[in-house]
């Protein structure tokens, strides 16, 4: 594994940590005061810092360090994570994400912004609360240990407890407090790459220390498991650094060991007296001195081996001993102890990161996307093959009662199940996209001076990865629109009797085999008069057009439409909602809007769960088999001669429930036949297309409804106007999937140009 691969893993982990960080901060923002949440946030920043340090990413390290320091104040209850504090922290999380991206992709970051945030963070760490609100005074600042936790009960005033004061009152005590630490590692500690000796050495740097090793738990050699931990240490440490500093040493080990830190009043309480264990002197010098290792550890081993004469166990025990030896040697060799310490802490961090990830979700593996895609392709083949097999059996076996048919049915069920399971591999929760949105909301709220709260629901709703990837862009547009256009300024909101803070609600849920994403704001809603006027100004509708509310609302999806009076950085260039609508439609989805003046708007997107399979209506047009995406079809009908009306030179309209709908001959548009077909002999598919307009597509016959596997035409051929993709039918032949929107556009006069320019080369 080369350095780049390791770095890539680091960045992947960074992404997870950043997500963890953001969700933790958002939880805190919602009033969660669980210390575990604070710890999770702290761990995330700390891990990023540690990893970044290992790769020499100085910008990232220095920012993460300041961030971490401030978070540490929150963790130790010296800083109350109020809304103002969290605002700074969320911004810092954004900058941290930017810095990480810049470190990976080599882009640049807004340095002014990160410097500003560093200042703000430092100010917070120094106890200055922004906006000088009635926050607790920086009481604990001078105290090395703040014993009294901040309890959020009303009527309880946090009391700072300072040892400085304590000492001042009791001059009889010694200069430095003495801590008694009982450290008993579990075997997990070693399994995760931590090393007790290194922890002890770190501890020794804090002050004057004496250590006793408790070996009571050590079993006889035949019962000794080489991977278990048997030793415990009892440490007496004189330090002025405080309990926090001691706990920091064990930071990444604390889940894997029993750790007790107690403050002993003075020297009178000699270490070890009250505990019923037999302390064995443990010489920390083994770290610096090789012979000491052989004496301290190997001799012990030899004794036991002699007693029990079990060779295998001895070998592994010796291996353990030599590990200690190596460790000691490397510590010796390292010119500066710091580097060894850094390596150890980096290892500890990655172990902790793994643990954090493991505890958050069920065990997962990282798989190359290509492999999954290959599997999905193969399953697609399997489905086609199975269909072909069924068809040929049906053709050759007229009686249809044989056991072959039974077997085939089972095969069909199995293939369907395999297909579903494989698709599920690609399914991912929409959470990452939703999380990105919270950042966008923050940024835009800042830019527009609005106060916005984003509520997300159904983040764990799963959908195909390709859909998720393509969802981010339209969703970003919509969120921007919702905050910029949808929500009013705080003053206007207050005037309208709403709370100053606007709410944007982002919801995802599954509904009948599709994913439905809803974006609701509690803003002013669509100003229909304004939209209507704008549409008239832009010649989108006639001045006297009679439009329903719904139709007016849908006008905002027209290209070149924007009602913002001023063109802002964020939105208002008139590219927005039409782009959104097109990208949603490109995904095979639909978007709807419903708006209540004064109460806000709701955008509803309905998307397919996967882009690899499509539900289609198989139809015949001029002896060709075509597939029409089912999502586009509103209804199918058998036209009657009386309902067909000629219009203009060559247009025909069909009357459906007293409204007229243009009739589009698919065969004619695709150039499959020279003259128009007789509508009465065929079937009309009523489709809805871009701009909300309905058209009746004329086809010769409907063969049935089927789930088809989408095959790219572009891979070996080229894009064909009017055709979205191809698929392979049960008989092994290729069928084309119609691109309904282009067909409808073509019927409006935009000709489907033959883009195959090979002829031009001749």
């Amino acid at each position, binding site marked *: 594994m080369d350095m780049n691969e390791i770095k890539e893993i680091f960045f992947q982990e960074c992404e997870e940590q950043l997500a963890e960080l953001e969700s933790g901060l958002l939880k805190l923002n919602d009033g969660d005061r669980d210390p575990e949440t604070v710890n999770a946030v702290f761990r995330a920043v700390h891990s990023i810092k540690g990893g970044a340090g290992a790769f020499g990413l100085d910008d990232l390290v220095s920012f993460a360090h300041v961030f971490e320091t401030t978070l540490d104040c929150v963790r130790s209850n010296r800083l109350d994570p109020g809304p103002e504090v969290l605002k700074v922290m969320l911004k810092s999380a954004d900058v941290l994400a930017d810095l990480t991206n810049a470190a990976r992709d080599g882009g640049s970051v807004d340095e002014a912004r990160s410097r500003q945030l560093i200042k703000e963070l430092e100010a917070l760490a120094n106890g200055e609360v922004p906006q000088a609100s009635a926050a607790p005074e920086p009481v604990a600042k001078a105290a090395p240990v703040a014993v009294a936790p901040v309890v959020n009960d009303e009527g309880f005033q946090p009391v700072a407890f300072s040892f400085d004061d304590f000492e001042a009152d009791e001059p009889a005590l010694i200069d430095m407090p003495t801590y008694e630490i009982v450290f008993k590692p579990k075997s997990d500690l070693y399994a995760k790459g931590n090393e007790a000796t290194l922890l002890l050495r770190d501890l020794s740097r804090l002050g004057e220390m004496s250590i006793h090793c408790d070996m009571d738990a050590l079993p006889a050699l035949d019962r000794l498991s080489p991977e278990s931990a048997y030793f415990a240490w009892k440490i007496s440490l004189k330090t002025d650094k405080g309990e926090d500093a001691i706990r920091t040493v064990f930071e990444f080990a604390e889940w894997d060991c029993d750790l007790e830190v107690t403050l002993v009043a003075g020297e009178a309480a000699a270490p070890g007296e009250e505990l019923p264990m037999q302390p064995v002197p443990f010489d920390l010098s083994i770290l610096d001195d090789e012979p000491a290792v052989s004496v301290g550890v190997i001799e012990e081993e030899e004794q036991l081996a002699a007693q029990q004469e079990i060779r295998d166990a001895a070998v592994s025990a010796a291996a353990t001993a030599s590990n200690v030896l190596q460790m000691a040697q490397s510590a010796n060799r390292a010119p500066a102890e710091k580097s060894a310490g850094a390596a150890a802490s980096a290892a500890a961090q990655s172990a902790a990161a793994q643990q954090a990830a493991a505890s958050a979700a069920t065990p997962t593996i990282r798989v190359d996307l290509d492999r999954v895609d290959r599997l999905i*392709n193969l399953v*697609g*083949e399997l489905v*086609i093959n199975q269909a072909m097999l069924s068809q040929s059996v049906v053709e050759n076996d007229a009686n249809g009662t044989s056991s072959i048919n039974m077997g085939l049915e089972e095969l069909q069920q199995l293939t369907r199940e395999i297909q579903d399971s494989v698709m599920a591999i690609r399914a991912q929760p929409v959470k990452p996209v939703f999380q990105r949105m919270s950042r966008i909301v923050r940024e835009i709220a800042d830019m527009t001076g609005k106060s916005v709260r984003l509520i997300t629901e159904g983040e764990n709703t799963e959908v195909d990865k390709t859909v998720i990837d393509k969802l981010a862009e339209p969703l970003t547009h919509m969120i921007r629109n919702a905050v910029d256009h949808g929500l009013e300024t705080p003053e206007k909101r207050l005037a309208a009797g709403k709370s100053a803070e606007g709410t944007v609600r982002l919801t995802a849920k599954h509904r009948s085999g599709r994913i439905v994403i809803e974006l609701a704001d509690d803003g002013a809603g669509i100003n229909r008069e304004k939209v209507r006027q704008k549409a008239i100004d832009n010649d989108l509708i006639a001045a006297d057009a009679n439009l329903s509310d719904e139709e007016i609302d849908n006008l905002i999806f027209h290209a070149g439409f924007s009602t913002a009076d001023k063109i802002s950085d964020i939105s208002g260039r008139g590219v927005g909602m039409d782009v959104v609508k097109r990208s949603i439609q490109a995904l095979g989805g639909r978007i709807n809007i419903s708006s209540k003046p004064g109460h806000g708007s709701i955008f509803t997107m309905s998307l397919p769960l996967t882009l690899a399979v499509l539900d289609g209506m198989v139809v015949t047009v001029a002896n*060709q*088999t075509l597939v029409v995406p089912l999502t586009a079809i509103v209804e199918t009908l058998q036209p009657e001669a009386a309902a067909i009306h000629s219009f203009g030179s060559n247009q025909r309209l069909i009357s459906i429930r007293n409204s007229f709908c243009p009739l589009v001959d698919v065969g004619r*548009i*695709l*150039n*499959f036949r020279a003259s128009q077909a007789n509508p009465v002999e065929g079937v009309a598919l009523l489709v809805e297309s871009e701009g909300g307009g309905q058209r009746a597509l004329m086809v010769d016959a409907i063969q049935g409804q089927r789930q088809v596997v989408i*095959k*790219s*035409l572009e*891979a*070996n*051929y*080229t*894009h*064909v*106007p*009017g*055709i979205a993709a*191809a698929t*392979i039918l049960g008989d*092994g*032949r*290729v*069928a*084309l999937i119609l691109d309904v929107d282009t067909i409808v556009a073509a019927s409006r006069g935009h000709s*489907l*140009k*033959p*883009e*195959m*320019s*090979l*002829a*031009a*080369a*001749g």
Partner: protein
Amino acid sequence: MTYAARNLTTDGRELIAFRVGDQEFCVNVMSVREIRGWTPATAMPHAPDYMLGIINLRGAVLPIVDLSARLGMKPAEPTVRHVIIVAQVKNQVVGMLVDAVSDILTITDDKIQPTPDVVSSEFERSFARGVLAIEGRLICLIELESVFPQEEREAA
């Protein structure tokens, strides 16, 4: 002929020869993936007349070109006796409908004679890389990348 300068320096090469109408052509065997029988193709809308349509090649969509029409000759009327040469052209795979595969030739570069200066159209000059005289037959070496120009497909 930069192609000739670049590629005709190797010592022997294997070519696959096939009949289209009453003429014989050959292409480098390295670009040929497989040879298969004719199966009816699904017509493509608004495709040039030499584009017969697309077929299913083990799950992939394969466009089929009538080489006869593509080379400016009479369009073929595909029968079961026709064959499809599946060839790799850059990163795409295409099928060429030809009358029959006639030979596999191993030749050295000095056997390739320059294209006679009688072809009229620019296009024919662009794909013909030279001619071979084998046992009294005239075989035209064609360059697939000129027959299926890639850039235009990508632009389209």
